[in-house]
């Protein structure tokens, strides 16, 4: 039996507006509500709504033989509620088919695991509650932001009660081994990990519409042929990708929707193939070996490491300032302040500051709402400074209130 395990990532950050130095202390609204609403509507029309419709139909048509998994970040869900309730409804309908598993992640799509375990646990907990509230289910399998992963993560997840995790099938970690099996890690040998088959995933996510690609055009028969080659050398082929692949990264006119509509039939044409969700894979397979992930891996770029989010002076300073502020933010017990802080932990903000591939004429390599990584840093660090000032102000008021009890604090 060869399983095809689809997982789609759904995420939209709360983008910051061009928050200026001169606004610090005067304006505490950091987010670009208009852009966030516009982008959400655009992606809803091009991707979420048509693709949810298509998948819902597939789940019903195949009577349970087609399955897939989603990880939907909490900040994406929050924005569905605010800007696109119809999208939330269509996800509920899709999940209601019973063929879809929802995964766990940090509510704010953050890198908090690397910086602050307490914050990490709290954000995972918040996401669990949000998924429960909207969909009435509790995730069992965990995916960390951008598939970031290292040996330290599985013991923490096992402790939190998760059954398994997913990450990238990085060559340097696997060496000669295949990503098409379950593995586990040295500090949690009983905790299974699913690995992305990046070759076949990227054939759909990145290369599908590329006319210069030697395999262009990609048909379902061709893809099923590649898939079937893993028989005898694999138990599960994990195809992990951004959900925005469908209609947003690969436009409708590439034929990506038609491809997905017909893929299940092509895969199921082989009697020994089947679709499975991550939990089902965990039930059917056992880890075949250990992978040692000493340095953190991710699914980004050729490097598949943290270098898209951390490493240049701006990114490092931004994270240091952000997580350095956590204690004072929480000590205010001000819900608005805490929510602003947490929205700033979304990994996209530091991703926009990446200078790795940033050259003139190449700016679109990194999708960003900013003209340059510098603009991204300025907006972020200004917001952090304002946040710090609000914390100080609240603290001063609290001290003053203790000393002069007649002074009222408005929360």
């Amino acid at each position, binding site marked *: 039996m060869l399983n095809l395990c689809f997982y789609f990532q759904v995420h939209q950050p709360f983008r910051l507006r*061009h928050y*200026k*130095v*001169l606004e610090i202390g005067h304006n505490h609204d950091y987010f670009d509500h208009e852009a966030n609403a516009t982008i959400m509507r655009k992606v809803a029309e091009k991707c979420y709504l048509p693709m949810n419709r298509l998948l819902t139909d597939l789940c019903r048509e195949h009577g349970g033989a087609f399955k897939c998994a989603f990880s939907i970040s909490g900040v994406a869900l929050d924005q569905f509620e605010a800007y696109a309730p119809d999208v939330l409804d269509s996800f509920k309908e899709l999940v209601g088919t019973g063929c879809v598993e929802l995964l766990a992640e940090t509510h704010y799509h953050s890198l908090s695991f690397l910086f602050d375990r307490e914050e990490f646990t709290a954000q995972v907990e918040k996401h669990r509650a949000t998924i429960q509230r909207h969909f009435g289910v509790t995730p069992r399998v965990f995916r960390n932001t951008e598939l970031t992963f290292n040996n330290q993560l599985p013991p923490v997840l096992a402790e939190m009660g998760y059954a398994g995790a997913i990450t990238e099938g990085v060559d340097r970690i696997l060496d000669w081994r295949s990503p098409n099996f379950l593995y586990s890690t040295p500090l949690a040998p009983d905790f299974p990990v699913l690995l992305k088959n990046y070759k076949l995933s990227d054939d759909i996510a990145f290369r599908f519409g590329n006319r210069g690609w030697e395999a262009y055009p990609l048909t379902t028969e061709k893809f099923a042929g590649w898939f079937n080659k893993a028989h005898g050398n694999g138990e599960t082929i994990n195809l992990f990708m951004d959900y925005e692949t469908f209609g947003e990264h690969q436009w409708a006119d590439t034929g990506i929707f038609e491809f997905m509509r017909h893929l299940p039939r092509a895969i199921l044409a082989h009697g020994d193939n089947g679709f499975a969700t991550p939990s089902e894979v965990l039930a059917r397979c056992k880890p075949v070996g250990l992978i040692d992930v000493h340095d953190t891996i991710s699914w980004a770029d050729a490097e598949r490491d943290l270098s898209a989010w951390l490493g*240049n*002076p*701006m990114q*490092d*300073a*931004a994270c240091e300032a952000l997580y350095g502020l956590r204690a004072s933010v929480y000590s205010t017990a001000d819900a608005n302040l805490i929510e602003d802080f947490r929205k700033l932990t979304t990994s996209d903000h530091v991703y926009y500051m990446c*200078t790795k591939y*940033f*050259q*003139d004429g*190449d*700016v679109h390599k990194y999708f960003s709402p900013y*003209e*340059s*990584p*510098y*603009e991204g*840093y*300025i907006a972020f*660090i*200004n917001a952090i400074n304002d946040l710090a000032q609000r914390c100080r102000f609240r603290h001063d008021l609290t001290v003053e209130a203790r000393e002069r009890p007649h002074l009222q604090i408005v929360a």
Partner: protein
Amino acid sequence: MRVLMLGWEFPPYFAGGVGVACEALSRSLVAQGHKLTYIMPRGPKPSGSQNNPTAHMDVLIAEHFAGHIRFETIDSLLSPYFSEAAYANAIEELSETDGLDAGTLYGPNLLAEVERFAAQVSWLVRKKHIDFDVIHAHDWTTFPAGARLKAETGKPLLSHVHITEFDKSGGDHADSRVYAIERAGMHSADHVIAVSRFTRQRCIERYGCDPGRVSVVYNGIDARALKTLKRKKRAEPSPKTVLFLGRMTLQKGPDHFLKAAKRVADFNPNVRFIMAGTGDMLLHLVDEAARLGIGANVLFTGFASRQEAMDLYASADVFVMPSVSEPFGIVPLEAMAQHVPVIVSRQSGVSEVLAHALKVDFWDVEDLASKILSVLSYPALSTTLAQEGQREVEGLTWDKAAIATTRLYQKVARHTRSTQARTAHAPAAQWSPLC
């Protein structure tokens, strides 16, 4: 290829963007195997000046161009940035100091001088039997000379646009006579070289050039400017310093700089602003700084020599070029080469080639002030800008500009040959009589 270049004097004798560009481009063209005859206008030695421009040029010739470039000069008061009034001033000044009527030696007004220069070039080329394959003229004052040579010899003409009348006037108050000469120069050219997409667009929209005959060749940065200075240890405690370096004219946006300085100083009174350069707005700007109450924060240092400019970069925490209309703008590249973070206006050609610079609209004083404060406040930002920026300018070489220029030489030469082959039986172009 043999190139007849109608250019401008080199720095330091002539310190302007077009002079820098002519020198550096010529250097790279020669390195790529071209032979240049370089004809330029040369004014009288300024009285009391210690410089001997001729000696300077001779040194250059000996050092760098031996055998590959031949310099010819024509006595003229032309300068690429002259307005009619500035030319009249120069004539008057010369007449006063030297006690002669300069108007009889040189053209009585700027336009007449431009025509006289064209005739002199034509005469010189014939007298010295200068032979060449292509004519390359830089900016409007040499365009009539280029067009005349083309008519007389049938050789192809490239008109290189470094700046237009619209940039100089900082808006729509262009001198219609200058405009007419610029337009004629572009239209008589076989191909027009614009220093940026910004300028190319102007050539097409304002001057009616055929888009297929205007190409962008970006300026580069002189390899010598890339030699990083040993940054002087700054006197402690030294205030954060914001630098403006350029002519104090409407085009360069010094007034917007001053308005932003006011916003910055309101926020942080310990910031120092250096405004280096001279120009017709200087006195107004000094008054304005006082009126805004930031007279003590703003230092006007006057014209900066090359060495002085390097010293200024060494003392700057951020360099700002808020130009209203800048065809290219080489100065920010020099600052970046010296490890200084830069902020440039989006209304500049150089912003098209820079990724590692902050960009603002020149009129958005609030945004400019915010970005200045950001660079001064956040070390991670200034460090990354400085490091990545320095790396970036190293890639903006004049050799790239020379390669692009060579391609255009070949293109116009090929086209001219095929045209001449088709009309081979027609009589060759005749020399016009001496004037």
